[in-house]
C-alpha cells in the first residue's frame, strides 16, 4: 500500500480495518474533490452519479471499530445565527490503532477533507462538499473537531472517537450533505489505497 501525499507534505494513507458491514467512511482531501477530473449528476434525482479524480488521487478508507454506538453517523445542522449555512459533521470511531495511524489523525489538523458515509439504501452521503446546479464541485470541507480517546473502558477501550466537521466560526456550507448515488463505485476509487489482509 502506498501513501499519497496531501497538502502540507503529510502522508494520509490510513486504512484502519474492522469487522462489520458499512462500518467505514471514505475520506478525500478537499482539494482533490474540488479538482475532480469529471463528475455528473442526475437531473431527475439530483444524485451524484459519476466521479473521476485526478491521476494518483484516491479515496481513503477509514474503517470503524465495533462495538460502537456511533459508528458512521453523518449529521448536519442549519445555523440559526451568524453566517447562514449548514454545518456538516461526521462522527465515527476507529478501533485500536498504532502510533503511525495516530500520526495520520494528527495530520488532519492541517487538512480539510470531504467524507462519503454509506447509507442503508446503498447510497452515500457526501459531507463537506456538494454539487451546484451547474454540476460543479463545491464545498469548504471538514476539519478535525474532536479526538477524545476512551482508553480504559472495558467495552470500548482503545477506540478512538473522531468527529470531523464544518468549523462553526468560519464559512458554512450552502447545502446539506449531498446524495451520492449507489451506482457510483466509490470502492473502485479507493481500491488502490485499501490494504487487504
Amino acid at each position: 500500500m502506498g501513501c499519497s501525499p496531501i497538502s502540507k507534505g503529510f502522508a494520509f494513507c490510513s486504512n484502519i480495518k474492522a469487522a462489520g458491514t458499512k462500518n467505514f467512511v471514505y475520506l478525500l482531501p478537499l482539494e482533490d474533490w474540488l479538482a475532480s477530473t469529471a463528475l455528473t449528476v442526475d437531473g431527475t434525482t439530483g444524485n451524484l452519479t459519476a466521479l473521476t479524480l485526478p491521476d494518483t488521487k484516491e479515496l481513503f478508507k477509514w474503517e470503524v471499530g465495533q462495538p460502537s454506538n456511533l459508528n458512521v453517523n453523518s449529521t448536519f445542522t442549519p445555523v440559526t445565527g451568524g453566517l447562514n449555512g449548514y454545518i456538516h459533521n461526521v462522527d465515527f470511531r476507529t478501533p485500536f490503532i498504532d502510533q503511525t495511524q495516530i500520526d495520520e489523525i494528527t495530520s488532519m489538523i492541517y487538512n480539510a477533507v470531504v467524507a462519503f458515509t454509506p447509507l442503508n439504501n446503498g447510497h452515500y452521503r457526501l459531507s463537506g462538499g456538494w454539487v451546484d446546479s451547474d454540476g460543479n464541485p463545491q464545498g469548504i470541507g471538514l476539519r478535525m473537531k474532536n479526538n477524545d480517546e476512551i482508553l480504559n473502558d472495558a467495552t470500548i477501550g482503545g477506540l478512538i472517537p473522531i468527529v470531523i466537521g464544518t468549523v462553526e466560526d468560519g464559512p458554512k456550507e450552502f447545502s446539506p450533505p449531498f446524495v451520492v448515488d449507489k451506482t457510483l463505485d466509490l470502492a473502485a476509487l479507493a481500491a488502490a489505497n485499501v490494504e487487504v489482509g
Partner: protein
Amino acid sequence: MYQIIKGTKGSYVFNKKRHNFTSDNLNEKPKSHLNFLEKLGIIKKLDKDEQSSNWGDSSSNEKG
C-alpha cells in the same frame, strides 16, 4: 454522437479549466473534450442503431 453514461449534466477539467456540460450540449463540445470524457468513462459513443434512431426522430420533427 455521444451520450452521458450516468446522469444528465456535470463538469470536467480540461486544459486546467473547468467546463460544464449537459445531455443537450454534449455533442457541441470539441472533439478533444469528447475523447477525454470518453476515456474517463463519463460518456459513450452511441452505436449506429441508436444514432439512426435519433436522426430519424430529428428528421421527422423537421418535416412536421
